[in-house]
């Protein structure tokens, strides 16, 4: 649930003294790993391994930035759309890292959905996370989500499909193909109907898992994500 998700994050930051940047790095890296499993390079339909990463203004967006950087390291060609940049200095550095790695930043998101379908193999939805308020209200998120609802290429949502209520799910929101749950699946994940659901929770200390009754799956080998 949303309250539990917040409590877990609080415990990691305050009791375990994880740094926020550290956690975002861990999550972003894990998301990139999940994406490479869901869409391996040789399986991509387009000639270039292009991926559009749409980043929202808060933490979910920052995770998207880190994810994009790791996708670049893994030889994908990410392009980022990050219209409302966070003023938080922690997140600003993530932007610089991406820019300095020659990851292009779009100046606008085409409303002509066919352009997106034609240019990219997949879209990473890092717009809104568990911390967001329900609904798709504020700009520019509303317009972005309206466009994403109509894309034909697969969408990978990070943690929570943007626009969904964290607990109740969605009626008429975006329909991601792949969901990567961070730490543990949120309640709305029960409404997820897409192809693959990954959990990126290997870094969670055992005691946190127990305390919140997370019952995580087994992670093979040294993998940081696992498909449910």
């Amino acid at each position, binding site marked *: 649930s949303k309250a539990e998700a917040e409590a877990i994050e609080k415990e990691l930051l305050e*009791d*375990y*003294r*994880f*740094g926020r*940047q*550290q956690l975002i*790095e*861990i999550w972003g*890296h894990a998301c*990139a*790993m999940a994406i*490479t499993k869901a869409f391996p390079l040789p399986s991509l339909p387009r000639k*270039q*391994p*292009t991926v*559009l990463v749409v980043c929202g203004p808060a933490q979910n967006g920052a995770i998207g930035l880190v994810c994009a950087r790791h996708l670049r*390291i*893994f*030889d994908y*060609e990410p*392009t980022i759309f990050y219209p409302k940049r966070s003023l938080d200095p922690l997140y*600003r*550095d993530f932007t*610089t*890292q991406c820019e*300095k*790695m*020659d990851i*292009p*930043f*779009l*100046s*606008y*998101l*085409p409303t002509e959905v066919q*352009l*997106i379908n034609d*240019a*990219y193999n997949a879209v990473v939805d890092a717009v809104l996370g568990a911390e967001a308020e329900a609904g798709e209200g504020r700009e520019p998120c509303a317009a972005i989500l309206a466009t994403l609802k109509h894309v034909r290429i697969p969408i990978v949502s990070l943690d929570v499909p943007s626009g969904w209520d964290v607990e109740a799910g969605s009626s008429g929101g975006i329909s991601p193909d792949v969901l990567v749950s961070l730490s543990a699946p949120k309640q709305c994940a029960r409404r997820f109907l897409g192809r693959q659901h990954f959990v990126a929770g*290997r*870094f969670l*200390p*055992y*005691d946190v898992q127990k305390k919140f009754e997370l019952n995580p799956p087994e992670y093979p*080998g*040294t993998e940081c994500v696992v498909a449910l």
Partner: protein
Amino acid sequence: RGDPSCPGPRRAGARLGFEAPRAAILPPSFPRQEEAQAIDQELFTEYKFSVDQLMELAGLSCATAIAKAYPPSSFTTSQPAVLVVCGPGNNGGDGLVCARHLKMFGYEPTVYYPKRPNKPLFEGLTTQCQKMDIPFLPEFPAEAALIDELYGLVVDAIFGFSFTGAVREPFGSILGTLERITVPIASIDIPSGWDVEKGKADGLQPDMLISLTAPKKAAMHFAGRYHFLGGRFVPAALQKKYALNLPPYPETDCVLQL
């Protein structure tokens, strides 16, 4: 600014494997200490990476390399017990991250961390380990034989590529003991006590070296069984600038066996 109708920068096939012939001919370069420090500096000042981020990726690489070379099933001790010896600087921090990931990979790490910097980064990493029930030894095992008995592997996270000058206590005695153990040692970045460029013939002889970012000159003197490259975060432009000629990492692995 990018235009959505022409996605992705042009990179003449470089990312799709067409560069293989060029990469095969040039060997990896072995940066000297100053170059290694310059690369690090550029990652922090130009690329705006934080120490937190890179340390997390570095420590993960170390743990992953260890898991590949010394899987838990290969240990003769009853538990896959690993002693992680952390020094007073960033190499020690890498060791703390490594210890945490080793625990998650099913090992039983124990840390010895005698000189702890008074900085939130290191305090946070220490807390993360302690709260994950990773014991911190109050003192270093007195005898090499004791280490051999209790642990199947020792991780040397004492000194890294910034090390110069004389070894200060307690690390002198620690290295003395480590030079006498028979269980394998995995050194992070530089075998501790070695000159970063010239090595040290009578110093530690680790079985594994995990070179971070790029192998330093000292790595040319490494004679152990396993040399891994880790720290898969160096942007392509930086690799080119310093002519690192790093071989490509396999798929999404964060380590590469050299």
